[in-house]
């Protein structure tokens, strides 16, 4: 099987994020591999390992695909050190500030050229938090959408993929045949830490850096535009009491005063 994992480098989730000129300021914060993409990488590796592995010349390959500045190679290197085989980075100044539509078009066009059977994504990036790109890639490719998976089962002989989808609406069992776009929820697995051997091996793996022209996607103005943004005012300071045995009642009094009970 040829498996692709779409990943994104995002500002560290512990960092304060700011808007500059209508876009998230990415330059002045620590950048990391999107937390939720680690589950996607792990799931891809597990699927490969369950069906013959992804060693060189083996039955399966796991390819990491990302779009972002050249700095995104750091996030890709982490995915490679976990065990992915190779990677493609679409890096082009014209793509800075790309919206979900453009991002999905670019990723879909890269995927189309490589004959993948399975594409796996995280459910969302921790910066934009839209949760739409996996569905939009599936739409663009006309591939089956198997998203918000808490469990994935693949049968390479029948090319059938079954998932358990978990959302606010409940739990669904869904299946489709290759090619499919999967997104996996947090905690579907326990992502591995890169081993020393994995880290050394990743240094020799290929990161194929391509420009936007190679994808054939025409970059137009973004289809949604930020007009303005502002930090929200800090909350007014509240009352803090130290418990002397009566704080429970003081809390109830506060709730009564606020008409919350």
């Amino acid at each position: 099987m040829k498996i692709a994992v779409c990943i994104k480098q995002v500002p560290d989730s512990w960092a304060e994020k700011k808007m500059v000129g209508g876009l998230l300021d990415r330059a002045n914060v620590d950048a990391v591999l999107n937390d939720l993409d680690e589950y996607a990488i792990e799931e891809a590796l597990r699927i490969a390992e369950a069906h013959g592995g992804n060693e060189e010349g083996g039955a399966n390959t796991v390819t990491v695909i990302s779009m972002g500045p050249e700095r995104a190679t750091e996030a890709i290197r982490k995915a490679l050190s976990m065990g992915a085989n190779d990677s493609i980075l679409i890096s082009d100044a014209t793509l800075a500030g790309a919206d979900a539509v453009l991002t999905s078009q670019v990723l879909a066009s890269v995927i189309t050229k490589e004959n993948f059977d399975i594409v796996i994504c995280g459910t969302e990036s921790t910066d934009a938090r839209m949760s739409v790109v996996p569905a939009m890639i599936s739409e663009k490719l006309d591939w089956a959408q198997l998203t918000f998976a808490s469990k994935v089962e693949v049968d390479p002989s029948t090319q059938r993929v079954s998932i358990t989808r978990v959302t606010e609406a409940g739990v669904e069992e869904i299946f489709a045949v290759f090619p499919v776009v999967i997104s996996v929820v947090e905690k579907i697995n326990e992502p591995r830490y890169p081993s020393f051997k994995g880290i050394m091996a990743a240094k020799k793996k290929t990161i194929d850096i391509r420009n936007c022209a190679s994808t054939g996607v025409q970059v137009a103005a973004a289809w949604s535009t930020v007009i303005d943004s502002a930090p929200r005012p800090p909350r007014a300071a509240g009352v803090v009491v130290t418990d002397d045995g009566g704080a429970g009642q003081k809390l109830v009094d506060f709730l009564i005063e606020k008409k919350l009970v």
Partner: protein
Amino acid sequence: MSTVLILADFVGEKASKSTVEIATAGAVIGEVTALVLAPVGKGAARAATLVQGPIAKAIVVESDDFDKHGVPATADALAQVITKMQPAAVLVVSYAFGKEVAGRVAMKVESGIITDAVAIAADCTTTQLVFGGSTTVHSKVSHGVSIITVRPNTVTADFVTCSPAIETLPLSIAEKSKLATITSSQPPVKGGRPELTEANIVVSGGRGTNGDFAAVENFADSLGAAVGASRAATDAGWYPHSHQVGQTGKTVSPTLYVACGISGAIQHRAGMQTSKTIVVINKDPEAPLFELADFGVVGDLFAVLPPATEGVKARKP
């Protein structure tokens, strides 16, 4: 007058509160038409539950493909109706399902998409709270129809009585929208407590519970609240991951949020800092979450919560 298309949301077989909310948001832009998608034979009954909210018309499309093929089939129908109606805006409820439908529709009708709006102006300018609610952003779709998903519980619903004119529209769903098949579907397990993202009150526990959520749950039950947990608590396996509040968990914005034994890393704040009133209970007076507290208690949650629980119960008849 411009028209606005909303994708009506049903819980069970009834139009949900979220449907009234998106109708209310849409009525600011123009006359609201609700799209009712239903299995064969159930369209009229579902449309008949559109009795509240500023809804002028309803378009009913019946097909068994919606339940069988989910998001892609729904997006297929919605895009066809958009192409026919050419509305100024399309509003969808911002749950996983609605966002994915909106995303696919944006690709199909070549339009921009904005997710998680908390307010919409007459010219379709949206307000979003991003980065865990720390920043307000105003945005606008600049190409095609404005495809907007609206975060539940943020728009104050106008429960005005309505009786929309109902039109039935025959549509067929393309084969490419039927590539994935749903073989079974179960509604969310409803415990005795409200759903986290819909609850008016949320009581959450963190590292300070040491794995014992009984005091947190008892206090939550006295208030009729949902129970949340910090990432530290879910990572430790103390509480189900589905209850995690934070950057990689759920975002909640209740009337009252009570954080018990949660220090308040940005990870957690991102999921709760837009709550209207925040109460913080923590042994550590230096816990950063006290910065957000309207009422804070420096103390042991196991000493503070039981008398508070009794105090709240004593208020109830």
